[in-house]
């Protein structure tokens, strides 16, 4: 089951590489949030406890409801155009992702020989981290950078579930809170930037001075 969810996770990463709409990024984030929630809930089906449901519930509320809503509101308030303005062609971007994914899968297979990790979730999480970084590097819009950061964070989460079978829950909730605060701060920053500069692109930040 973990493998199945990881495959779907990887598919969403591919979709992220070819889509050219800001809205699609938000839906992918939502989809990934749902996948991660199911991933955490799944082991608890056999031995159910209310306490175990706190983390999935928090995850669901933050990743599937709060953050996407907040990003959508920023998109509407700041009147951000719907295309993502890539700096390289989508085709090259997708090729880059395919090659790095192949590399990551091969490497994690080698790693899994010596350590006790689940290859597929581990590699999927790792790929998400790399794709998140690529999204931040190769896109101009600031709001997409926020999305890239969140993909990276999702990757770390999946990575964590692959490495340790049971995560200390308080730490995970703390991380979630951090992410929420970061997205919140980025939103405020975007609002500020929009009142000073007309564009929401990295290129226009060159003009900023003290």
């Amino acid at each position, binding site marked *: *089951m973990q*493998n*199945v969810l990881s*495959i*779907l996770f*990887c*598919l969403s990463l*591919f*979709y992220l*590489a*070819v889509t050219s709409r800001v809205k699609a990024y938000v839906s992918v984030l939502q989809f990934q949030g749902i996948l991660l929630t199911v991933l955490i809930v799944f082991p608890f089906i056999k031995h159910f406890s209310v306490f175990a449901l706190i983390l999935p519930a928090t995850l669901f509320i933050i990743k599937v409801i709060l953050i996407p809503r907040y990003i959508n509101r920023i998109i509407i308030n700041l009147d951000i155009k719907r295309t993502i303005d890539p700096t390289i*062609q*989508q*085709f090259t971007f*997708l*090729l880059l*992702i*395919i090659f790095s*994914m*192949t590399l990551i*899968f091969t490497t*994690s*297979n080698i790693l*899994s020989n010596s350590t006790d990790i689940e*290859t*597929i979730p581990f*590699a999927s999480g790792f790929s998400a981290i790399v794709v998140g970084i690529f999204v931040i590097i190769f896109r101009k819009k600031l709001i997409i950078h926020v999305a890239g950061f969140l993909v990276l964070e999702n990757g770390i989460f999946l990575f964590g579930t692959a490495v340790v079978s049971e995560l200390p829950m308080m730490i995970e909730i703390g991380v979630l809170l951090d992410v929420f605060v970061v997205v919140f701060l980025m939103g405020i920053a975007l609002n500020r930037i929009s009142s000073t500069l007309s564009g929401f692109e990295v290129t226009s930040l060159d003009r900023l001075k003290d």
Partner: protein
Amino acid sequence: MELITTIKGIISLLVILGLAPVFSGLVNKLKAIFTGKIGAPILQPYYDLKRLLKKETINSGSSSFISNISPAINLVVVIIAAAILPIGFARPMISFDGDIILFAYLLGLARFFQILAAMDIGSSFEGMGAAREAAFSVFAEPIFFFTLGSIAFISGLTSIYDIYHSISLDNVSYIVFIIVCSISVFILAVSECSRMPVDDPNTHLELTMIHEVMILDNSGIDLFLYQYSSYIKLFIYAMLETSFFYPFGVKSYTVGIIIFIVVITALSMALAIVETITSRFKMKNIPQYLLFATAIGVLNLLIYTFTK
């Protein structure tokens, strides 16, 4: 027993040859219904073919023997490819180890001759269409090899019939695998048969066409052969897609046939819906659309290589 298998194989091939135009007609009819039109009757492709048979064949003055032989080669090669695919659990007429490669390259040969014939005519429009077809098929070929190749790799078999029948459903991952594979085969079918997001079969504006522009100067029996082979080609890809769903039936001949009919109808519905809700891509976006399907194939291969 041997005789019955052979007869079943022959019947399968005859079904493909007979039903191929119906499938195209069904897709067009559904598409018309979804867009609020009445549409041409489902049997319209047959009427078209009959009309073409009566017409006279005229070839361009600058064309050579390639233009004469290419339509016939195209049809024959596509029919041979159709004989490799199974319907239900009947063993197809041609089935041997390694026929997966033969299947891919038979379709490649058909495309090659079509491109040659298009350039042979000497019109710049046909040349443009040929160039596009060649360019996009470069991206379409890896989809086939990564998708079917990954199942071949997992099962360790190289015959299409054997590969499909080795898929077992006792593992949950295989169900996802089937769904994922069928997505990439669907994209392959759309691009190879020049359906909507890649090419619009109904436009007759030369600058936007890919497949249709190559057969602009053909008429009469030549056009009949091209049209018929394109109907069969669409049906072949539909069957390739259908084959992923056979493992859901218990291995009996009747259930296989029922699955075949249900999935083919569902697929025509899916094609019609996709053609209704999407518009044609810009030319520069097509490679990335095809690469997306290849990426799915690569992912399949990676996952099933490294699953312990």
